């Protein structure tokens, strides 16, 4: 990387890192340090390929998504998922929307990285199922079934969200 390229890279990081940190923070389930690691690793890969990458932001985002995918929890065959910990129940009763959001955060942070990634891509990045499938390198069916399971899991972890989430496809 020559001096001009390094300036370009630094400018990209300084302009885009707030938005990328927001994404990383959600993918990491609200863990600031894990989010920094995730973004830092993706930026290091970008730096190594800076001269050859046409769309740096798309490149970094895809690395971040796929890093999460490669951290997907190991699942057994025959369709089962190893769940070592029973779901924790959130406190019952919060009526206000802001409280519901806190419950939602706690529930999202308990999802597996795979489940959370699909929901973040769908509802934060606003990608279609086809786009999510392309970004993650999986089938549309896998995206849909993962999204379905993720929402079911949210409802299971936090029953008070069930009503709010029941009509989400």
């Amino acid at each position, binding site marked *: 990387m020559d001096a001009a390229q390094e300036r370009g890279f630094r400018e990209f990081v300084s302009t885009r890192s707030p938005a990328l*940190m927001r994404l990383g923070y959600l993918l990491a389930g609200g863990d*600031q340090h894990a989010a920094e690691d995730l973004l*830092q690793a993706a930026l*290091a890969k970008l730096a190594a390929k800076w001269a050859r990458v046409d769309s740096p932001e798309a490149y970094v985002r895809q690395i971040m998504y796929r890093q999460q995918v*490669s951290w997907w929890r190991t699942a057994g065959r025959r369709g*089962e998922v190893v769940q070592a910990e029973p779901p924790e129940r959130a406190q019952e009763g919060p009526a206000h929307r802001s409280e519901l959001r806190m419950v939602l955060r706690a529930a999202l942070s308990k999802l597996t990285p795979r489940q959370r990634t699909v929901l973040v891509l769908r509802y934060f990045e606003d990608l279609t199922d086809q786009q999510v499938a392309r970004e993650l*390198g*999986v089938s549309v069916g896998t995206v849909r079934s993962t999204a379905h399971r993720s929402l079911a899991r949210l409802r299971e972890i936090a029953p008070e969200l069930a009503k709010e989430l029941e009509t989400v496809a």
Partner: protein
Amino acid sequence: MTDLLREGLAEWADEARTPHDLADRALRGRRRKPGRWLAVGAAVATAAALVAVFVPEREPATPDPAASVTVEVTYPPRPAAETDVRTDTENNPPKKLIAAGQYAVSAYFTYQAGESNGDPVKRRWSLYDPRSGGYEDTGWAWVDVAPGLHLAAVLEGDGLGRRVGLMDLTTREVLRWIDLEQPAGSLVWSPDGSRLLATTYSEYPDMVQKDGEQHPDVHKPVRTGYYLIDPATGNAEHHALPSMEDSKFGDPEGKPFNMNRRQDLGWSHDGALLWMPTATQPAKVYLTLDGAPAEAPDKATADSYRSEPRWSPDGTKLLTGDGLPTKVVGRDGAVLGEQRLLQQWAWADDENVIGLGCYRKCSNEFHSSLVMTSVDGKKVTELSTYQKGDEGRWYPVLTRR
């Protein structure tokens, strides 16, 4: 009602703090926390090393000297297949045989997970016992019942095993032991019940992965290959076949990958090919028995993560996968019926499907039971109790009767 999710995520993202030195860190490899960053670096390095190491070329099969037995054993005769429906909706896990049409639950397992991140998650197997008509708790590392429900292969060991027993299911007598040089982690009978396939691993594949705590070995490739075993003679041939690689940036679109440690192999329906599991679609990548790449015999089967045939026994109807509702289609693709199933597992007969049905209105998909349903979804027979959550969950294995 996606507003809560959208607003909730956007608001949560606002709490992220952007470090001022991200560009420096990326350019100079500076570390926020050496241990953590090294772990990420190590994971990347492992993936890169995998690319270099994983060469999907064939290696010659090596006869296993530890498994050179010459005397043939006589199998107990395969009984005439029954096709009745047997349920146990009282006991959880079941105490009586569960069966529907051409399939029976020949065994089931529960998971026994360790406490700490990275501890093994072992399976505890219960095996069909024709003497009692129920299931017997066993200490085998793995069991697989041959079609006909008269013979079982059992793996002896703590997680992985180096000795395979051929057991008469009725007498519970082990007819033969077959020693393996390389430790195996799973066993599966060929569809005709004449051969066994054992997947071998360098270390036990299933581990506890706590949320938010990435274990450095969670995606370590541990498959070493597979044995093809002729249980009658005790002859076992090992073929090397490392784990399928994980995905990496820059992979061509559609390249299959699998990040899981456990990657057990299976048989094609005619027993002529083997398949390895992917984490992508299609769910199976086929190999010849020698381990050379092979064409998938049937797209629908390759797309399914289940090993049972997707086509009905008369070949006219096709299971299309998971859903709620699930669909059965004809040869022309026309929908023949919808079922309130979470997953379609197998054909009980030409008109009925075995699958996972959920409780009442299905407000919770983890509250489910094994059911048999007609293609049009109108007639549903509960085969087992409903199970809720993961605590104590048992996982049935279907075998042809």
